[in-house]
């Protein structure tokens, strides 16, 4: 009798697990694991134009690396690949530091320290770039930065007595960092705002009673409470930025000056009219992106002590 009960309970546990976890696991396998495995296969093939898988080869990687006996690891990077790596690093680091985390934090702190309605209004304004369709958003940027004197930015500059500028030609990286940053900041803003809201009010009162000014409150009350959201946003946005190319493509097209790794993979494989159709080559670059992503995620995990965040809560009631 006992064993039947045990069996029944075990079966139930299993079916419950399948019921609750099943859909998530299937989705994970279908949309995360399968594409990575597929990408791995394609990267080691010579798939192009006709999408045939004909042979197993490492020749795609020879397009990225050159065997070099004098180099430390026995190979050096080809110019285009090396440049893409550097541009990706600049793009991810700057967008993350100045906007997705930095500016998001500033927005969250400022909009929660002003009257609530006003705060909500400003946050809504900062959500607009994220809500507008990407093509419309890119178009607005195009109008703003048109290099002639008809561009909005140049009209303002000329009116202020300054020389007109050509962002696309002279500061292309700044342009894509700004365009992505204005969108990316809102995500951090929302997460940080809700974290700040969850800080018990009495902590602020106590701080004020103890004579803390606004800066001291931020330093000793708000920031410590934001530690986990900050780690989360940093890891999440690093990965998102590494593979993002949508706005770079819409604003700059296949320009060399903003050819990050994700853009390089896209232009070599799927981008229309730029010598695409080299699916295996694109997959090889993507594979390297995946490896960089994994290393970056693990490194940041370690650095920001995310493990602690994901630990089981200690006050579980059994």
């Amino acid at each position, binding site marked *: 009798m006992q064993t039947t009960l045990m069996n029944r309970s075990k079966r139930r546990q299993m079916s419950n697990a399948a019921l609750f976890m099943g859909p998530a696991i299937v989705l994970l396998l279908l949309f995360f694991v399968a594409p990575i495995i597929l990408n791995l296969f394609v990267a080691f093939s010579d798939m192009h*134009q*006709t*999408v*045939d898988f004909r042979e197993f080869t490492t*020749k795609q990687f*020879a*397009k990225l690396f050159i065997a070099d006996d004098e180099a430390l690891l026995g190979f050096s990077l*080809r*110019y*285009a690949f090396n440049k893409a790596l550097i541009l990706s690093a600049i793009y991810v680091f700057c967008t993350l530091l100045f906007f997705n985390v930095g500016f998001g934090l500033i927005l969250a702190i400022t909009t929660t320290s002003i009257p609530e309605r006003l705060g909500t209004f400003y946050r809504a304004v900062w959500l607009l770039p994220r809500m507008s369709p990407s093509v419309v958003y890119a178009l607005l940027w195009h109008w703003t930065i048109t*290099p*002639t004197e008809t561009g909005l930015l140049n009209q303002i500059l000329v009116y202020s007595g300054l020389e007109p500028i*050509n962002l*696309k*030609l002279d500061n292309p990286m700044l342009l894509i960092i700004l365009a992505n940053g204005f969108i990316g900041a809102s995500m951090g803003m929302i997460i940080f705002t809700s974290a700040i809201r969850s800080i018990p009010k009495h902590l602020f009162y106590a701080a004020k009673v103890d004579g803390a000014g606004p800066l001291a409150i931020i330093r000793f009350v708000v920031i410590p409470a934001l530690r986990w959201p900050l780690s989360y946003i940093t890891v999440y946005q690093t990965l998102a930025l590494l593979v993002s190319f949508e706005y770079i493509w819409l604003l*700059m*097209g*296949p*320009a*060399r*000056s903003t050819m990050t790794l994700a853009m390089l993979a896209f232009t070599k494989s799927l981008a*229309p*009219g*730029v*010598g*695409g*159709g*080299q699916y295996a*080559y694109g997959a090889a670059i993507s594979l390297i992106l995946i490896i960089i992503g994994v290393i970056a995620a693990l490194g940041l995990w370690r650095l920001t002590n995310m493990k602690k965040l994901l630990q089981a809560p200690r006050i579980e009631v059994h």
Partner: protein
Amino acid sequence: MSIRSIVGSAVVAATALSFAPAAMAEEITVKLWSRADRAGPLRAGNIVAAAETLNAMLKASGSEKSVKVELIETNAKGFDADALDLLKAHSVGEAPDIAVAAHEWIGSFVEAGFAANMEEHIASVPDLYADMIPSLWTSVSYKGNRYGVPQDSEVRMFFYNNDKLRALGKSEEFIAGLPAAVNSGEFTLYDLCDVAGEAVEKGIAEQGLLHRPNIGPDFQMLMASFGIEMYNQEQAKLQISKSKLTEYYGWLRYCVEKKAIPADITSWDWSSVHDAFRGKKTALIKFHGIWHGNNQIKAFGLELDDKDGYFDKITWTNAPAAAKGGSPSNMSHPIVYVVNEQSDQKELAAMLVALASQPVPNTRHAVTTNHTPITFGQTAMPDFVEKGWLQIAGTPLLKYAQFMPNHSKIGQYNSITFQGVQAVETGEMGPQEAAEFVIEELEAELSDDVIILD
């Protein structure tokens, strides 16, 4: 209704059925793949019209068969993207019976087993193809055989704004003599940028010379002016000369330094380029193709049949030579019909192509979209003489025309050499450095398919 009448109707119905034709009317569907393109809706339309002609012939012969064209209209951004889509469709067995494509993809189509060899078909109906302008066949040839039928032809040129040349102090003799000066090699690419740069310096034009902002065939004309032969016929491989490529990039740098070519032209979009030549105070020279003629006529406030008015405003030349006494260049980039090698209706599809390629339907396409004719006879047709004066005027430029190589990696080749154009124009690299970079990339990506010359 009485029983008698029911029985009566049943008998009538049964009799009618028993007298129905033994062979039921058979409708054969031919699938046609064509990019939705405002520059040539009749590329597909003429195949549909050809089916109607063929159906009338079938009916006259008493055949119960009829042909229906099912149009697969794609929305790819350009012919390159469309060809890649077509190859993908082919690899999963979804290819059409006939496709409209840019000719340089024929190499890829043959290698992928899509394009059918048309030699037998052409030989079977020689009269339908006898008037085809022979040089156009080159555009569909791959390793000695023809794998398509030219659908249209075009001519590319440098457009000069005459009013701006006049404002620059150039005499009417100079303007009128430009085409001849280019053809004789007296007016070179360097002279071109000197004039264009001067116009910008003096504030007569905002831009001196506009070339296409993206990867595409036009650059081949410039490369040809520098003596770069992109294709080695004997070995059926692409090729590049390092010294000539350096010289070509050096010229682009020269033009940017002269302020003739805007340094950021490769990040413009097409509409800005077109608008810049059609605007009031913008570009002096634009480099593109004849099919923009009608839009230019409208932009300059002229009537569509005002030939003299048009040539008073605009001068055309070939691409000038790079050095004094050199040869100018031009290129034509035909769109072609390709028949699917694996189609069950291969012969029928080829016949539809043959009918669509006849002077009357082709002229309908050519005069409405400013394309040059594919047969000699077309130039004498009243429609062409009346409405096609632009094309007739452009045809002499074809004397210097060449085609893009029909090599499966030409897209990659163009993409990589364009990298050099962008690197040099934006000032990222010097000409020498850019040429070295481009050659390294060509070797890495194309390996055995490219020959590197000194």
